[in-house]
């Protein structure tokens, strides 16, 4: 058993590996951590690379895969790649849920038989509040897509991102009534805070977190391996590197072992005391 598998079994290392499939998006949400929008640099992760990461993650003892972006479903290859990735590990895809037309739904149908779930963003039970952050007609589009995905047999989760003061108890109750109405059970609804990075930092939204406060989930993007999917964010068009673990991502064991070393408290930098001139 690898040291990674042992740490996952012991609960000291999270069992999920994330991948940033891309950075571009058809939306441009006010709090987007990656400054995603239609015209930004795509920073694509190659589909073969995604499959390689899933295979090696399974071999190392990881338990599941998360795929995020950008909007992953802008990538034409995604349904096929998801099928291949999920052969190795159960896979969760984060999506804004706005691209599921008839053609796309037909392409997704085979995924119903596979361990693939979609997590769709919905930030408020009120269309105007949701759309203020996520763009015009977002609420209506998402509400339309969720039952159609579920009708295909695809597992759908809902993620609500927001400032605590924007989602009071009443909003929360109405949101839960809505997701239940859409067929999404309570355990598949998550509420998460805005992290003050990317565009959220520009507009003063969200909370600051130290790395130690963020789960140490290994996250791979085209730029390297990071501590958590909150790592490879973008600010002012520049990649954030403060949560970068390594530029090298193959073999996956290399960044995985560096991350393990970090969480085991052998924090780096002691060597810096050598005082290079």
């Amino acid at each position, binding site marked *: 058993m690898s040291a990674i598998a042992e740490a996952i079994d012991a609960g000291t290392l999270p069992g999920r590996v994330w991948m940033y499939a891309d950075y571009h998006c058809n939306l441009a949400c006010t709090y987007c951590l990656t400054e995603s929008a239609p015209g930004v640099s795509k920073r694509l992760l190659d589909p073969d690379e995604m499959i390689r990461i899933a295979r090696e993650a399974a071999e190392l003892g990881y338990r599941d895969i998360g795929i995020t972006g950008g909007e992953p479903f802008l990538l034409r290859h995604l349904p096929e790649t998801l099928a291949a990735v999920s052969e190795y590990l159960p896979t969760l895809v984060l999506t804004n849920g706005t691209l599921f037309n008839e053609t796309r739904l037909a392409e997704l149908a085979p995924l119903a038989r596979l361990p693939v779930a979609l997590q769709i963003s919905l930030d408020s039970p009120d269309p105007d509040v949701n759309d203020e952050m996520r763009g015009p007609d977002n609420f209506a589009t998402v509400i339309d897509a969720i039952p159609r995905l579920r009708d295909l047999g695809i597992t759908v989760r809902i993620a609500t991102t927001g400032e605590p003061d924007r989602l009071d108890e009443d909003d929360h109750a109405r949101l839960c009534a809505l997701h239940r109405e859409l067929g999404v059970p309570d355990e598949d609804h998550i509420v998460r805070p805005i992290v003050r990075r990317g565009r959220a930092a520009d507009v003063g939204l969200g909370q600051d977190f130290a790395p130690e406060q963020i789960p140490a989930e290994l996250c791979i993007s085209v730029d390297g391996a990071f501590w958590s999917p909150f790592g490879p964010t973008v600010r002012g068009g520049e990649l954030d590197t403060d949560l970068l673990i390594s530029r090298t991502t193959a073999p996956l064991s290399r960044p995985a072992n560096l991350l393990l070393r*970090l969480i085991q408290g052998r924090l780096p930098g002691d060597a*810096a005391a*050598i005082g290079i001139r």
Partner: protein
Amino acid sequence: MNSMRVVDAAAPATSPLVALMTPATAPLLTRGAFADGQPDPITAVLAQVPELFDVALPFIGATLGPSFVPLRAKEIVILRTSALLECEYCVGAHTVVATDAGLGHDEVRALRAELDWVAVFTDNAERALIGWIDAIALGRGRVDESIATAMTDHWDDPAVVEITVLIGTTMMLNRLCTGLGLPPGADTLERLSTDGFSA
């Protein structure tokens, strides 16, 4: 020999070719090096590749730092090699370190190729050392037998190995600093001026 380019300290410093990492951008594995603020430029550029930094910095520290080879000999190696490779950054920094290690003003100038080293260095072991440095840093192919024999006559095997690795490591750093255009620090320039050395 006086092949070293003299830099006009008043000339505007050029920007490095790549970004120097800062306390705000330093990756996790490199964080300790930024805990007290902005480190030296070599550390700051190596932090661009944290997994390389992770092994390179301890290696560089073990090679350039205190060891069984006397500090004076190590500074002769580093300064001489840096002068031969015309690395402004390393020549400046190690002019200061060599002076602090007890080398005399003329010795430092000789290593910087500003004086004839044969006239300045009279100790046979140090003459053999400088001959070896020049052969390794500038030569191609096998080292001339007389230079190699002089070296092994005065230095034991472990010292020959470490000194040769030190020459190579210094050359790597010289090319890194020169290629990436790392600027000598203001404190180094000030100290050089105070001690009567050109930058």
